[in-house]
């Protein structure tokens, strides 16, 4: 029983730690009181409910979404180094943000002048960019039967978007460049209120579709040809996986910025922990493991007790990269 429960228990522990720890040191009793609506100071209440709680929920959703996405991409492409961004979603979102940041500076909508509009616009344009890339890939998937061709198209689309971003950056002013750079570093702190509601709704929709994909993913793991011989409609399943990916990775990137490495590393960690690649086990395991890792990255990025905050993307990368290197050195190219 404990074997099954330790990961959810660890997640609960980390969720609590994320609420109790932060760059502002708060008394644990005060945080506890604020959480249960008991008498606490206004500042503590605001920090807990307006900042730490939404940030913790955002990290939880981001970790779950990126990890579940990574599992699906690795299975679909039978590639242990595939990640949620392999089809260019991140670059598409980046291009959307680059357009918005550049455009908003022309209309004087800056991070400091109208912050809510700037944040909302950034998320909306990032989402549109991710969606545009995915629609392009979906349209091409009807013509390209081979998964490998589609993978190359995705990588090329991502590279083209990155090249355009470079071009936009070249002609941008320093404040616009800084805003763009801040977005690329990732943050869970800006997702509050309606934005959190929208992100929660989109991520839950993506997670539900992913659960529905479990049966097909198990068959796809044995190869496209075998899956088709069983009567699986490959193009339908592939499109459904792409829709889930857009909802999950697109939403996380739009609201939190591009957060790399978790999507590649967590599926491998889950397989190593549970020794089971059956998606009925792997999808929930990756969701829980991803949530744990992302919340841990968030706690570390806050550097508890100090006034500094590290970019969450950097922390996530430093946590994910050793796992990827481990996978490469263990020569587990076929470790799906």
């Amino acid at each position, binding site marked *: 029983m404990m074997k099954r429960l330790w990961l959810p228990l660890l997640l609960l522990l980390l969720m609590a730690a994320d609420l109790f720890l932060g760059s502002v040191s708060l008394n644990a009793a005060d945080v506890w009181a604020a959480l249960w609506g008991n008498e606490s100071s206004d500042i503590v209440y605001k920090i807990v409910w307006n900042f730490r709680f939404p940030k913790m929920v955002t990290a939880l959703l981001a970790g779950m979404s990126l990890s579940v996405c990574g599992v699906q991409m690795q299975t679909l492409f039978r590639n242990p180094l595939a990640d949620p961004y392999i089809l260019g979603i991140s670059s598409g979102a980046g291009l959307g943000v680059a357009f918005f940041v550049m455009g908003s500076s022309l209309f004087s909508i800056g991070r400091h002048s109208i912050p809510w509009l700037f944040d909302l616009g950034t998320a909306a344009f990032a989402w549109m960019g991710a969606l545009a890339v995915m629609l392009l890939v979906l349209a091409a998937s009807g013509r390209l039967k081979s998964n490998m061709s589609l993978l190359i198209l995705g990588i090329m689309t991502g590279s083209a978007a990155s090249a355009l971003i470079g071009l936009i950056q070249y002609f941008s002013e320093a404040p616009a460049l800084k805003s763009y750079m801040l977005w690329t570093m990732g943050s869970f702190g800006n997702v509050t209120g309606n934005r959190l509601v929208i992100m929660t709704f989109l991520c839950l929709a993506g997670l539900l579709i992913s659960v529905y994909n479990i049966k097909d993913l*198990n*068959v796809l793991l*044995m*190869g496209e*040809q075998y899956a088709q011989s*069983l009567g699986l409609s490959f193009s339908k399943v592939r499109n459904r996986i792409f829709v889930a990916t857009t909802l999950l990775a697109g939403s996380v990137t739009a609201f939190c910025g591009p957060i790399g490495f978790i999507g590649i590393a967590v599926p491998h960690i889950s*397989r190593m922990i549970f020794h089971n*690649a059956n998606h*009925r086990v792997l999808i929930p395991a990756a969701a829980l493991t991803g949530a744990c890792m992302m919340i841990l990255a968030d706690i570390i990025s806050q550097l508890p007790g100090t006034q500094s905050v590290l970019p969450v993307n950097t922390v996530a990368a430093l946590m994910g990269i050793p796992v990827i290197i481990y996978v490469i050195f263990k020569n587990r190219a076929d*470790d799906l």
Partner: protein
Amino acid sequence: MNTVLDILDVSVGYSRHSPLFEHINAQLVSGTVTGLLGPNGIGKSSLLRTIAGLLPPLKGSIKSGMGGEKGHSCAFVPSQPLRAAHYSVRDTVSTGRYRYTNWLGIEDREGKQIVENALERTGIKHLADRNSASLSDGEFHRVAIARALVQDTSLILLDEPTAFLDIANKRAIGLLLRRLALEENKGILFSTHDLSLAMEHCDFFWIMTPEQELHQGTPSLMEEKGIINRLYY
């Protein structure tokens, strides 16, 4: 014995302009093992893939199975079945029940029993909880055959099931196919380059020749007609 495969004037290949093999007419009955022979590149795998529905026929029509449950008429075992790490043998075999499981891929009690029976009949029950990636090629070919068996079809197609196997494993697979045809009343069609294995275990041969002729008959008839000699010697 029932007809489980009826091929009417079928052409196979990847392009209408240059079909690999044309005008194939053949029938296969349940309870028999048929060996598909011919030189490399003649279209054996394409024919099997066409029967399995993985490739559309360039011309003609194919009726397979006996109107199996859920419209699934034949099971296909590719020449090099892929295996997944951290995936148990039992779970691997269960994927063959794709059409019969619920939306999460979970078996009912009857389905679980069918999987256990297939593990038993293919002689891999003792491996059921092992990681598929840790099996030898011979053992995994048995897993692939068990996976075809649980699909509950009247016809099983195998593309070079004994390629890359040692002599003992080749014989074991041949005997297994023979036993499944007789005991489970399956129609079995497999492609092979191993003439001695085919001679030992097949009831019928389909021989595809470079002259675009499909010769059919018992192994002894094919030998008498000199077709085997023309092809192999």
